[in-house]
Each structure stands twice: as C-alpha cells, then as structure tokens.
C-alpha cells in the first residue's frame, strides 16, 4: 500500500512539474526567438534599451519603495498598539486587513476615481503628485493583508509588554519605543512584508492603468499588444524579480530562525 501511495505521489508531482515548468520554458524559449533562425538575446537588448522601459520600471520601483515605507509606518504602530492595549480590537483590524482580498481591486480603484476626482472634496487625481500619492495609498491597501500578517506574526515572537515597560521605565517616549525598540525587533518580519509588497507593486496593472500613471504594468500590456518577442523577455524579467523577492524573504527568514531558537 505504501508503495502504491508513493507511485501516485510521484505521478501527481510529475504532472505538476510539467504544468508549472512548461510555461516557464515556453516563455524563455520564445524570448530568444527575436532573430530569425537563431536564438539570441535581442529581445532583452531591445527591452532594456527602451527608454520607456527604463522610465516605467524606475517609476514602479520608486512607487514600491514609498508604498513599503508608508505601509510599515502605518501597520507597525497599529499592530503594536492593538497587541499592547486593545487586544479586543484585533479581530476588527484583522478583518479590515483581509478586505482587500475580498473586494476586487478594480472596485477599489473605481471608488478612488469617484471619490477623489477633480470635482471632489479632495481632488487627488487633479495633479500628478496627488495621483501618485493616491496610487501609493492604493498599493498599500493591496499589500495590507500581507504586510499586516507579516508584522503581526513578527510581534508575536517578542514580549512587547515587558519590552515597552522596560523602555518606559528608562524614560523612553512612544516615538523612541517605536523606532528604537519595536521596529528593529520585527525587522525580519518587516522585510518579508516589504519584499512581498515590492513583488506586488512592480507588476500591478489595474490601479496604474485606471489612474493613468506611467507604471511598469501598463507598459507591459502596451508591449504585449505591439511587439512579438519582447513581451516574453519582459515576462522572464518579471519572473526573475518575483523569484528574487521570494528568495530574499526565505533568506532573511532562515537567517532569523538561526538567530532565534525557533520562529
């Protein structure tokens, strides 16, 4: 019986490998086809040399950076405070942070367009800076479920009540407690959330497209409908970025497990 179970396990696993690796091989092979009759990295050269690529990619990287900073500054004090002082509120906060997984992103951005248009009380979409800020807020909302979970899990592993009291008895204010005590202690969790946020923001399409910002996602779609081999090269690049983010998360998590006895 054990032998049979093992056979089926290998079969299921093999089928999975086939399904998951064929598209990766396919996209890589396709991206090499730009030169007729031979494999080359021409499509990559075209993509990387395209000023549009450089601009949109840079834009998305900067957006990701600000989204991460904003997300961390918003979520860490909240998760800390709720754990320390308002444990009863935790289910409520958790519920709110899960909402972005339930409400389709396209509905949220539709709401933004309606609420923050040029004739509204807060006309964020009226200026480029305003729209960028709105987009950043939108991205933080999309990242909220992951960011909150990461940081909240990080906080669970330290005794925040004791640490806070110790800091307070030494005369530390809330600001000091936050930035010199809590944040450094949950740095690993924060970084996991940050890399995940980065992976989400870099490829995001709907928010950027509907808010009309020159981000990497809309650029990829534009390439998709105008070029043949370059999109596959972009897909390979995007996949590499996603891999890098996940690998970094694993790396720092493993590092922290090494530091602490158990994660």
């Amino acid at each position: 019986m054990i032998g049979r179970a093992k056979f089926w396990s290998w079969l299921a696993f093999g089928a999975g490998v086939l399904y998951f690796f064929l598209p990766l091989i396919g996209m890589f092979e396709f991206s090499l086809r730009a030169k007729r009759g031979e494999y080359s990295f021409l499509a990559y050269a075209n993509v990387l040399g395209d000023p549009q690529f450089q601009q949109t990619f840079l834009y998305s990287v900067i957006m990701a950076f600000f989204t991460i900073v904003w997300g961390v500054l918003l979520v860490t004090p909240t998760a800390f405070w709720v754990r320390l002082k308002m444990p009863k509120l935790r289910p409520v906060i958790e519920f709110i942070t899960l909402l972005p997984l339930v409400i389709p992103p396209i509905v949220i951005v539709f709401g933004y367009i309606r609420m923050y248009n040029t004739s509204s009380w807060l006309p964020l979409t009226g200026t480029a800076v305003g729209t960028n800020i709105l987009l950043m807020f939108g991205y933080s909302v999309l990242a909220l479920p992951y960011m909150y979970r990461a940081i909240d899990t990080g906080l669970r592993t330290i005794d925040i009540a004791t640490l806070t009291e110790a800091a307070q008895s030494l005369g530390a204010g809330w600001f000091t407690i936050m930035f010199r005590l809590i944040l450094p202690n949950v740095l690993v969790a924060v970084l996991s959330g940050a890399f995940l946020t980065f992976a989400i923001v870099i490829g995001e399409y709907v928010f950027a497209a509907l808010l009309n910002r020159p981000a990497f996602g809309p650029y990829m779609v534009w390439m998709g409908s105008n070029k043949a081999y370059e999109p596959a090269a972009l897909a390979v690049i995007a996949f590499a970025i996603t891999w890098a983010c996940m690998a970094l998360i694993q790396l720092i998590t493993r590092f922290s497990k090494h530091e602490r006895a158990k994660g």
Partner: protein
Amino acid sequence: MTDATATVPHASAHAPRPRRIPSGVTKWVGVAPFMIFAALFLILPTLNIVVGAFQSSEGGLTLDNIKGLARPEIAKPFMISIKLSLITATLGCLIGLVMAAAVTRGGLPKGIRDGMLTFSGVASNFAGVPLAFAFIATLGRLGLVTIIAKDVFGVSLTGFGFNLISFLGLTLTYLYFQIPLMILIVTPALDGLKNEWREAAQSLGASGWQYWRMVALPILWPSLLGTLALLFANSFGAVATAMALTGSSLSIVPIILFAQIRGDVLQDPYLGYAIAFGMIVITGIANVIYIVLRTRAERWLK
C-alpha cells in the same frame, strides 16, 4: 503592570508612576491613523460605489442600475466570470490539495517539499500580465508547445479546437496562480494531521482512501472551504491576466468594468457602479457561505 500595582502601596506617596497607561478615548489615538486610512482608502471608496449603484443621474434613489445588470450584455459576462471563478477555484483546491498531499504525506524526499513551497510562493505571485505572456509563448499560436505538438507529433492544437483566448485557455492560465496559492495555504494544515491518526485508522483496517475520506478530509474541511472562497475572489477580481491574454475579446466582468471605467463602451456611468456592486455582492456571498460553512464545520468537529 502587576509590578506597578504591587509597589503602589509602598511607594505611591513618594514616587507616583511618571507615565500612565492611556485609557478610554486616548487609547483610540493609537489606532486612529490606521482607521482613518482604512476608512478613506478602502471602506469609503467601496461604499461610494455601493451608493452609486442605487443612484440615478439626478441623485435620487433608484433600482434601475441594478435592473440593468439583467441586460444580456451584462448578465452573460457575470455568468462567465462566476463559472470561471468556480471552476478555477475548485480545480485549484483539488489539484493543490493532491499535490500538497503528495509532497507532505506521500513519502517524497523532503527537498522536494521545500522546493515546491518556495516555487509556490513565487508562482502564486507570478500573476497578471507576465503570466499571460508566458502562456501565450507556450500555448499561443506560435507557442513552444503548439509548435512541438505540430512539428514532432503532427498534432494541431487549433485543429482540436484549442484556442488560448478562450474559456479553457483562461482556466488553464488562472490555475497557474490558483494551485500554488492552495498549496501554500493547505500545506500547514496537512502538517497538522498527526501520524497517529493515520496509524489508528490503519490499525482499524482503513484503506488509504478511507483514511482520507473519513479522517483527513473532515479535519481539513474548514481550511479547504476557506481557501475555496479566497481562490474564488482571487480569480473573480483578476483583470490583468485576462486583459493581457485576450485583449478585451473575452467578456468577463472585470474586463467589462475596466472598459466601462475607461469610458470605452457603455455610455451609462451608473451602470458601471451597478457592475462593481454586483462584483462586491458575489465575492461577499462567497465569503458569507464560507463563514457559515466554516462555523458549521467547526461545530461538527468538536
């Protein structure tokens, strides 16, 4: 805190505690930024759409927009989207469960398990535009598999009626992020299954299948249902993948709504609110079903 109260009788007169724990209203200050942010950029925008769905162009209350959802050009995409989400969520759950079970319980080497989890983390985030490109490069008209099938095996996929820009193509593509998400969520649950349970079942004469059907699955049921609802919402709201894969040739709800917001097709903005409202209702229903079933499953488990 217990320390503080314990020392108070001795030392309170000389050294009152310099800092007091804020209580009552002041306590709320700590969560205010988050609450305000969530209200302004998550909850109110959504409510705004809901309200808009019931508003006429003059600002009065109306059900006309909602009735507009019954129009065939709106109702049909809704049906397609629901079907697509149901199928990819169900298949994603089943296949993900089988794969996770194969790797965690099926006696495969541990290295495979870690590799699969890492890969799932990547694949579940490799959604959207690049994923569509990968599938076009593989199963599209000039894709690798299409060409190999034709040149090596002499099989024309299109001759079989296969077209990537179709319901089937979209299903295949969506499963690429649905299955890994399932694997990520269900693996910890599978790890929670104790070996003793399997041994107990076996010693009572249960076959492998009976063990799964009568012991493991009932235990996993709540988390399976939860994931089903999550996967449903995940594919129901997905825009970028479908958009990059099909342009806008396949009518699923998010694409219709996208075109509507852009002002490309229908000229009635309030219908857009109704479509968005319909989307919220459907993902909402999926989650209510999940919560109800889950409470039941948990009660039954006790």
